[in-house]
């Protein structure tokens, strides 16, 4: 059934699930983060972030000055406190980002408790602790028991409650063989019994990996993050040179600058804003993906998602519902619309397949009568591969059939019936449109043709339009013939399609796109998707899929919703943009800080510098402290933005650049002028 399109939440911000609300930082996380912020003051941790490490060293030096030097003790103390807060704020940002992951990890850990497993030993069954299970062990799990470890069902079928992992409460059916055979440790068998071969050793299970990932324990700097921090470190080194050579010059000119003043100048100039938030941005990006119920195996994959230019999607199950629905019923020969509908509905009364049900739904939609009572006393003829038709032998002796064109024609001809002259034409027409024709006949008369059509999921067209606006090309892969594929492709609005597609074709398409310089993402669930998932730059495997697919992919969607790749791409873009925005902002801030601090530090020795004090700050002391305070408090003020990410709307590169430059570049120049002036006015009234 089609749902009204307008209710689909596409074409807007990514539809974040309810539990992924980004604004709320609950008090317990904040409390934990504050504690962690202090713990992170450990130099062994600080040294990993060169920029904040410089601030930390500066802070320690300033504290030393405060203790041992009598002059300007109050000012030095103020500098020490502000610098301490600057470091603390940066640590707090990182802890907050980590804290949200930790909360999720804790709930996962709860489902990781040891359970008793019934392990097969020879012909016997032995009850052991799940923690002792190794790869290759075989266990039996029955209704009400927890699956003791990740594994593959080798015998049986069961419905399993995976809500501990996916949050989805409806149980899923898993069975031996095929693409739905993998089970995850910690999930609950709700019915039936299965025999499972364990596929992971203790500590290496899917759950273990997930916990490590969301906790950020195995977090490594991503390529772009590494490159950015290299550049920021070199800017820091340049400013270190600037500040360290300054006392030589002033000494020659006959005046001295105190250590804390130089430290204040240094801290104002180095890019502390982005330096303090950089790792928080990365962690929060990963976290946003996790909140979408997608587990990214590395931050690198999330970053790569932002660069994706081609997405390869399966038709069936992703773009279309995968079952054919009746979209029209066309009369042939002497039949009228009424008679053909009557025949079609009669033939489908007992048909429980989606195709059969869709015929009745169509009739209802068109207000055609459905003669339900005809079923009484009728004999049901089920579909068989040999006959390729199904239907009813009614109580009144009429025999109603629908089926493949050839089969029905043969059947009618055998009874001496006529083949209407326009049948072939109608059948061909439907085939041309990409549909599947089902011919309907009663006894010797062919009434018409049911036009079965694969139906595109609602909202897909909008999704693809949005992708196009993001500059991403979509390629649909399907096993259908080119005609059908072309029709669905046109209807769904994909940019390209590959018909009669084999798994090898998928890899070929990916390689072709990669050779053209594109980064490719694809989704898949079957074992034969695994090589393609590995070849793609971003491979998103469905949680419902096989172990092989999950291992080859670099992301796993716990909800098994293939279209989620689109949201992942948006999160990747947001991550990169947030980094760029805060870097631009941080560097643009330097203009105002220079105007505040440069005249201030030289004004005592060179009174004429007052001319450069264009912000008319109250005094050298308030000017330096204001710049420093602004520099510190801008970090916590930007934590929400780092967590949430810069808002993203699909548009061309020029529009995006213009918009973000205006906000973060021009804004970055203006905001500190205002901020520093306000702080200065406040300070002047207090001091």
């Amino acid at each position: 059934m089609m749902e009204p399109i307008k209710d689909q939440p596409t074409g807007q911000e990514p539809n974040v699930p309810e539990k992924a609300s980004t604004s709320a930082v609950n008090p317990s996380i904040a409390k934990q983060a504050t504690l962690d912020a202090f713990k992170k003051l450990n130099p062994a941790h600080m040294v990993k972030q060169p920029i904040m490490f410089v601030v930390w060293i500066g802070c320690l030096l300033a504290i030393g000055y405060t203790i041992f030097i009598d002059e300007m003790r109050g000012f030095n103390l103020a500098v020490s406190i502000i610098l301490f807060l600057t470091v603390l704020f940066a640590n707090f940002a990182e802890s907050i980002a980590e804290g949200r992951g930790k909360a999720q990890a804790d709930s996962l850990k709860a489902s990781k408790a040891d359970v008793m497993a019934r392990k097969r030993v020879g012909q016997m069954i032995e009850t052991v602790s799940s923690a002792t299970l190794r790869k290759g062990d075989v266990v039996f799990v029955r209704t009400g028991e927890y699956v003791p470890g990740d594994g593959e069902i080798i015998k049986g079928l069961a419905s399993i409650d995976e809500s501990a992992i996916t949050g989805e409460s409806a149980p899923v059916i898993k069975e031996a063989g095929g693409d739905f055979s993998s089970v995850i440790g910690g999930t609950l068998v709700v019915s039936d019994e299965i025999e499972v071969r364990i596929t992971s050793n203790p500590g290496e299970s899917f759950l273990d990996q997930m916990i490590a990932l969301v906790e950020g324990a195995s977090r490594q700097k991503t390529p772009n993050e590494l490159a950015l921090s290299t550049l920021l470190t070199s800017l820091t080194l340049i400013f270190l040179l600037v500040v360290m050579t300054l006392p030589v010059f002033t000494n020659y000119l006959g005046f001295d600058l105190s250590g804390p003043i130089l430290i204040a100048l240094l801290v104002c100039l180095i890019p502390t804003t982005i330096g303090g938030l950089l790792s928080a941005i990365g962690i929060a990006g990963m976290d946003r993906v996790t909140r979408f119920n997608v587990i990214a195996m590395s931050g690198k994959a999330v970053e790569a998602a932002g660069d994706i230019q081609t997405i390869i999607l399966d038709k069936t199950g992703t773009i279309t519902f995968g079952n054919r629905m009746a979209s029209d019923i066309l009369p042939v020969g002497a039949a009228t619309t009424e008679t053909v509908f009557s025949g079609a509905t009669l033939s489908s009364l007992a048909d429980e397949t989606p195709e059969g049900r869709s015929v009745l739904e169509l009739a209802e939609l068109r207000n055609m009568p459905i003669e339900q009572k005809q079923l009484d006393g009728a004999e049901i003829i089920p579909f068989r591969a040999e006959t390729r038709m199904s239907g009813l032998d009614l109580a009144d002796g009429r025999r109603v059939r629908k089926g493949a064109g050839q089969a029905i024609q043969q059947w009618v001809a055998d009874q001496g019936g006529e083949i209407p002259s326009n049948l072939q034409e109608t059948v061909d027409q439907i085939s041309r449109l990409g549909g599947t024709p089902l011919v309907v006949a009663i006894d010797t008369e062919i009434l018409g043709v049911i036009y079965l059509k694969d139906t595109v999921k609602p909202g897909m067209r909008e999704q693809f339009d949005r992708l196009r606006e993001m500059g991403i090309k979509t390629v649909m892969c399907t096993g259908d013939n080119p005609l059908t594929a072309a029709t669905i492709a046109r209807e769904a609005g994909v940019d390209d399609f590959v018909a009669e597609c084999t798994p090898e074709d998928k890899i070929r398409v990916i390689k072709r796109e990669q050779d053209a310089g594109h980064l490719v993402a694809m989704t898949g669930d079957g074992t034969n998707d695994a090589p393609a998932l590995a070849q793609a730059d971003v491979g998103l495997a469905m949680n419902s899929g096989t172990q092989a697919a999950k291992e080859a992919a670099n992301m796993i969607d716990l909800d098994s919703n293939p279209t989620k790749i689109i949201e992942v791409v948006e999160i990747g873009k947001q991550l990169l943009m947030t980094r760029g925005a805060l870097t631009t902002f941080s560097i643009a801030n330097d203009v105002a800080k220079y105007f505040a601090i440069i005249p201030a530090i030289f004004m005592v020795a060179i009174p004429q510098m007052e001319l450069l004090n264009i912000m008319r700050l109250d005094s050298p002391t308030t000017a330096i402290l204001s710049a420093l305070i602004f520099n510190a408090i801008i970090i916590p003020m930007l934590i929400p933005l780092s967590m949430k990410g810069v808002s993203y709307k699909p548009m061309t590169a020029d529009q995006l650049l213009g918009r973000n430059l205006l906000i973060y570049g021009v804004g970055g120049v203006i905001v500190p002028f205002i901020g520093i002036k306000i702080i200065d006015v406040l300070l002047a009234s207090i001091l």
Partner: protein
Amino acid sequence: MWTQFLLQFWILLVIALGAAVLLGRYIGTVFAPVGIRKTDWIGKLERRLLLLLGVDERKQDQSWVGYSKSLLLVNLLFFVGGYLLLRFQGSLPLNPNGAVNLDWSTALHTTISFMTNTDQQHYSGEALSYLSQTFVLGTMLFVAPTMAFTVCIAVIRGLANQPLGNFYADFVRFILRILIPVSFLFGLLLILLGVPQTFGGTVTVTTLEGAKQLIYRGPIAAFEVIKQLGNNGAGFFGANGAHPFENPNQYVNFIQMFLMLLIPMSLPVAYGKMIGSAKQGRLFLGVMTLLFIMMTFGMAGSLLANPTAHGQELRFGQIGTILYSSITTAAETGAVNAMHDSLHPLAGLIQLGNMMLNVVYGGTGAGFLNVLLYAFVAVFLTGLLIGRTPTFLGKKLETFEVKLMAITLLVPPFLILVGTAVSMYVAPGVGAISNPGYHGLSQVLYEFTSATANNGSGFEGLGDANVYWNVSTSFALFFGRYIPLILMLAIAGSLKAKPAVPQDEFSFKTDTPLFGTVFLGTVVLVGALTFLPVLVLGPIADWLTM
């Protein structure tokens, strides 16, 4: 006066831009990566010369490592040869004036200075023999600009996704096709306009008062034209462009300014042609020109603060002096027609700014390499704003390139600030300052800025003819030149090896006015803010306390 300034400035700018566009297109054609191997008579001469060197350029495209090695090898050969000739010039021929051997530090400094296209002179022009003038300095005037030019061309080829080319082929081609013909043409013009050209020795004349006066002469016109065209800037005489033989009149002054701008202005045009997007080239040329206009107007503005004629070369007037000193620092030539030391502090500020930015055209090749460096930085910093990994011309800028960019960015501040700070601390450094206080700081800062940016002009007033200054500035000259050249080659080599991401409307554009603004902002924020504190203590304090 303003009318005269505006008239001269705009006429110069229009003529120079027009000529640069033509030259740039020519460079873009003859240095095009593959396919176009010229078959005219110069092409045949080129090939014959290369075969003498054992190079068949059709087979010998070099990697960035190979290109760098050849570059360094050739530089080393010229350096050793030049050093030895200067050390023993006293006993060598072509020395009618009896010049003596240079001491080791002066010879070292002079050789490095000339090989790096800086031409900072700690000796006086009259201290050299004709052999040294012609065969050491004269040769280097051709060779030195060629070094940065070849690297610049190789880097552009890399960005255009083509083989980097062959160093020797580029070396020979630039000298044969650009430097020699243009020098010859303008050399004749200078002779016609009254610049002397002779191998005759010093003339001794008796003045009206009966005193004896020595008049030095030499092949000045030839020297002068390549000095300006190659952004060398060495004076044949100690007084450089203020000497009436080097720069006899307004017309010669004008031609010199034109020649300084010609090649630096033409490179963005050549770049546009070689990467197949004239628009990209025009954008860089536009931004560079905008900076040039702002800087020169700023400098002219200092005249308002200093309406007296103090510090100006009277033969060219205030306008001729200001324009010349703006261009010589903008194009990193270093020729001077007045003593920069005696101009208004704000003029000094702008001269320093020109050299610190080193992209307001910048020297032959080196200037445009700096433009590309800042463009990379601008792309990396703001490219993320479109939600993709930053790409320059479709090539991703990743950790390796960013590391090299970061080191290259560090070089000028390190050399300038550390060099200045050390000199302000040690006795021979401080002792050289003739005018203590803020102005003294400016003198030292200028010396190291000029050395690092391979400009070569002096603020003057600094007693720099001694071992300390020769050795300390040699460091700045050497590292300020070669580190950026090699690292930029490495970046180009690495980018060339990457697959190109196809460009569409969702890729970062480097040819829009928006990117021009970003580029300008990066140059100002990253390039200039670094030096603001020291500039405030030097020329700005000098001005505020006047």
